[in-house]
């Protein structure tokens, strides 16, 4: 699936699109994408395992299958740019360079977690990495992200904001409110709709009058692109154009066509789709397998990939160990951080 522009107003952006999903990536880029995507995959598999062991509680939304989206987008921004997302946030944090140990320890509710155990899977932040959460209420990253973008305009920076939300959130009223203000004030924000086809158990077709979500900005004059979110190189190429647009011109919508392999959360029996559908996606569209083949074709030796596989496995083992060894927060922590003293 090629990057496809959804609105007329974005034509100029399309015209500058590089052919075949972007310039030929360097060996280093391919290796980096592979390492980052694999880190997310292995992290989430381990998180699922720890959940099954009762070490992680509550809601835990795994990102497996969607790795190409955040890795491709992250490659298109700078460390000064800002990222905000909703509750399926582990992948975003890892792609941004947050420490897997701190993320995993937050999942286990330990003091070594990014929120010292007080936030959990859906509520983590890193000011240092310009990651602004981790929000449990569907749709909120759109307007909160708009505020981050407003601050960039106010302070006259050239930074952009990536505001991620899902296909389900796209139907929230505040998303439309945010689109309106973003374009009204030409704020530097990229709305990334991760369309994994299902809002919990409700498919896009069952929930959305306009199923092509990249077109949702049309009435506001916001250009949109529908992008194959299972191919990291396509994502990166689209993100390059969109980020440039957001930095120089104003908001844009990127609809990332993707798929989650696991349930909406750990407690989802996933009766709304067939086993065959999931298996087919895994077999034919897996973003990591796809990149691996591409790397082999580019002449990267299997030995190199094996080294990355092992390193990743070790990092995740280390994170899991840390997340279990880190103590629970001191009871006195119950009353801290309610207000800034």
């Amino acid at each position: 699936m090629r990057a496809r522009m959804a609105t007329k107003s974005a034509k100029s952006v399309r015209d500058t699109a590089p052919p075949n999903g972007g310039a030929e990536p360097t060996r280093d880029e391919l290796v980096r994408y592979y390492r980052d995507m694999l880190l997310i995959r292995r992290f989430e598999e381990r998180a699922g395992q720890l959940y099954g062991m009762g070490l992680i509680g509550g809601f835990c939304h795994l990102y497996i299958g969607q790795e190409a989206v955040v890795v491709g987008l992250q490659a298109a921004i700078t460390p000064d740019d800002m990222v905000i997302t909703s509750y399926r946030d582990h992948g975003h944090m890892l792609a941004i360079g947050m420490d897997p140990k701190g993320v995993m320890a937050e999942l286990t509710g330990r003091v070594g977690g990014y929120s010292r155990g007080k936030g959990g899977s859906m509520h983590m932040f890193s000011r240092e990495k310009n990651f602004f959460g981790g929000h449990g209420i569907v749709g909120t990253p759109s307007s909160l992200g708009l505020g981050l973008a407003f601050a960039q305009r106010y302070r006259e920076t050239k930074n952009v904001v990536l505001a991620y939300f899902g296909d389900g959130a796209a139907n929230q009223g505040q998303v439309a409110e945010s689109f309106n203000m973003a374009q009204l004030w030409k704020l530097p924000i990229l709305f990334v709709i991760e369309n994994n086809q299902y809002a919990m158990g409700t498919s896009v077709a069952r929930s959305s009058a306009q199923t092509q979500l990249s077109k949702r900005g049309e009435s506001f004059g916001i250009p949109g692109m529908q992008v194959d979110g299972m191919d990291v190189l396509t994502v990166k190429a689209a993100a390059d154009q969109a980020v440039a647009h957001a930095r120089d011109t104003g908001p844009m919508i990127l609809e990332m066509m993707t798929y989650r392999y696991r349930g909406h959360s750990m407690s989802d029996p996933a009766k709304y789709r067939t086993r065959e559908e999931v298996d087919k996606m895994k077999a034919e569209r897996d973003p990591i397998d796809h990149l691996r083949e591409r790397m082999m074709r580019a002449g990267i030796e299997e030995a190199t990939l094996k080294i990355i596989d092992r390193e990743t496995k070790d990092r995740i083992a280390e994170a899991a160990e840390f997340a279990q060894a880190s103590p629970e927060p001191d009871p006195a922590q119950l009353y801290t951080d309610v207000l800034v003293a």
Partner: protein
Amino acid sequence: MPTAVRMPALSPTMTHGRIARWRKSVGDSIAAGDVIAEIETDKATMELESADEGVLGKVVVPEGSNDIAVNEVIALLLNDGEGKEALDKAPLKGPALTSKPVQAPTAQKPVPIKEPTTPKAASVEPTASGASGWKPATGGMVMQTVREALRDAMAEEMRRDPDVFLIGEEVAQYEGAYKVSQGLLAEFGPKRVVDTPITEYGFAGLGVGAAYAGLKPIVEFMTFNFALQAIDHIVNSAAKTLYMSGGQMPVPIVFRGPNGPAARVGAQHSQDFSSWYAQIPGLKVVSPYTAADAKGLLKAAIRDPNPVIFLENELLYGRSFEVPIGDHVVAIGKARIARAGTHVTIVAHSISVGYALTAADELAKEGIEAEVIDLRTLRPLDLDTILASVCKTNRIVTVEEGWRSSGIGAEVSALVVEHAFDDLDAPPARVTARDVPLPYAANLEKLALPKPEHIVAAAKAVLYR
């Protein structure tokens, strides 16, 4: 007989107005619909269109006149064929042509009701400074309306800190739906005084996001009734984030606007949300009465690194009080003794403080000295000041315009029972709004809201008198 042109009521809360300009002169022919004058109200300057036709015979109230009561005759129109001599016969005083509404029969024995005097633009409330009261920074005092005090607080803080900005509906070009942001656009420009679309959920979220990034937004809600659409961001995105981030992400933001019943605007525009916000950990909630506190507390709220809910009252905007000159900041979390007394403690906030002071005057006539506490801050509550008073008076009455169940009075009563049970000589009494949506009809609206008479009755009840 000439037709009288009367001062119109151009807003639900307008009691007086100013003739800013006459657009017609004596002798001009006037058709119905012609703009004849510009009237300045408590909210805006409006054009007065003539409802009748004729020739402008006399300007009764000259241009520039202040404090002209609604219904006062301001001009006379001569009808067809009438000469100037007819003007002498025209009555310049007397009631308008409206008939008094027929009183509905009351099912219950009517409570003797005397409405508290409607606040006038120029009415003056002396500010008693209590134990925890403020001190003027430079010694001097100035008379200011609450509206002006709020505007000055914002302007001073915006001068002091370039990260402070004001955002909301009609705050910039219109200068505030209630004229609270007058002059701010002119001084600070559209970058820092930002008009939004009508999109409460969206711009509340925008404000919170900007605060995440380190700015210090003042988010104005035209009224807190509309903040219901935004309460998700106030509670979920602003109040909880510091905690959920393990202390990493402060949210320095002020949400402000009028709260509580106004006058004759019906149920959807007339709700006191004090207890809603006072329930939320991670928020501070402020609700001042005097102009001095409005200014000092708003300045403190803007400087506070936490999310602050700042509940104003539309009916107080036009009231004048003494305000200390200079950088007047009032600490959040401190109540004020609005009147000292020894027999009964009356706890109130916002406009109810005025009702409590009126009630205290009435009680004094019967030898009962009430101590009136203006809470000023609802979260955190100044328990120490309340308990110190109750230990002295052994009796407490709470007053609020909110509903009774799970209200501020319920909280204060519970705290007093928990902490000063042995000091109480009577169960706490609560004066609140009736447990109904606020009705529109003038008589029903009066019946639904607390009044000084109710406070007097409650105070006597806890004194067993």
